[in-house]
């Protein structure tokens, strides 16, 4: 057991524990905050594993943007502040499948690696990673930029009610399906603010 092992064990226990709280807690907002803890612990593991750039990208994108976006969604869907009892379905099947997958994969990996030791390479810098991205992986990188643009446009089109909706067929079924005029009127403010958020984040 070296220092790296102890660090990895502690951070891994932190990540798994807070991940379990993410899927088990009854408070919606606390689930988001436990997710911050889990992703931060994972960023620490990346640092120990000498993936420095990925660790900082993880902190920037996940902890900085994705979790904030999720918390925005929690607030915009008018989630209750306190504990809520209707967050879960009866879950023995979910526990069976999830536990089976997790423990099965863990058993497989433990069997493959036992307790062997590997020495860590020297700490990776952004220079080597950037060299790889822009030399060997340029084409996937560019395709990803096109995908981000497509996701941005798609999010805007989905969020705005006045784009791409057939004019004649809209009012009847949509109106009768909502619970009432009060909720229907409160909705547009929810969706109207969305495209701006997304555009600012995706760039």
């Amino acid at each position, binding site marked *: 057991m070296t220092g790296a092992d102890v660090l990895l064990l502690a951070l891994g226990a932190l990540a798994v524990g807070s991940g379990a709280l993410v899927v088990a807690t009854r408070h919606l907002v606390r689930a988001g905050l436990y997710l911050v803890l889990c*992703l931060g612990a994972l960023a620490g593991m990346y640092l120990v594993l000498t993936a420095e750039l990925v660790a900082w990208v993880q902190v920037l*994108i996940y902890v900085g943007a994705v979790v904030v976006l999720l918390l925005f969604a929690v607030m915009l869907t008018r989630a209750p502040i306190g504990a809520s009892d209707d967050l879960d379905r009866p879950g023995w099947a979910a526990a069976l499948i999830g536990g089976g997958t997790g423990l099965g994969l863990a058993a497989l990996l433990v069997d493959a690696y036992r307790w062997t030791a590997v020495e860590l390479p020297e700490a990776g810098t952004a220079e080597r990673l950037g060299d790889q991205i822009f030399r060997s992986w340029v084409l996937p990188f560019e395709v990803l930029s096109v995908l981000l643009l497509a996701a941005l446009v798609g999010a805007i089109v989905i969020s705005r009610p006045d784009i791409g909706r057939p004019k004649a067929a809209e009012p009847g079924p949509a*109106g009768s399906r909502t619970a009432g005029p009060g909720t229907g009127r409160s*909705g547009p403010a929810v969706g109207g603010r969305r495209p701006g958020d997304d555009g600012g984040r995706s760039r």
Partner: protein
Amino acid sequence: MRPVIPYVTAALLFGLGIYGVLRRRNAVLVLMAVELMLNAVNLILITADTTVRAHLPHGGQVFALFVIVLAAAEIGVGLAIVLQLYRLRATVAVDEVPLAERPPAGRPAEPATAGATAGAAGASTGAGVGGEFGSTAGADARRGSADRPEGER
């Protein structure tokens, strides 16, 4: 460094993500569980990058970066869908989404099964009483929704 520690962590996180996706009713919580699964995959990629000597160095880290970008795109589109669902139905519970394309007028929970078997009689009376009132209210809400975003922007 013992590679078994991060590998087992990633496997357990993936199992937790699957459990959360299957268990949770709230769509935002389902998205959070999906993030857990994506991060487990990232951890596997980075651990493999440090333990396995590949022909192209640092392929695992590059793939982890790509997965992070894909997750960002996924969360953007996913939250747009969730908020649109909330606007239409005033709920984000994933098991209350009717799978029938356009259910006949009435409550959205039952018609997927009951509306199909009960046939046209129940649907016509339901549309006659509830549909008229609902369509006027819905038209107001729709018109407001078409105006507001431009004004805000």
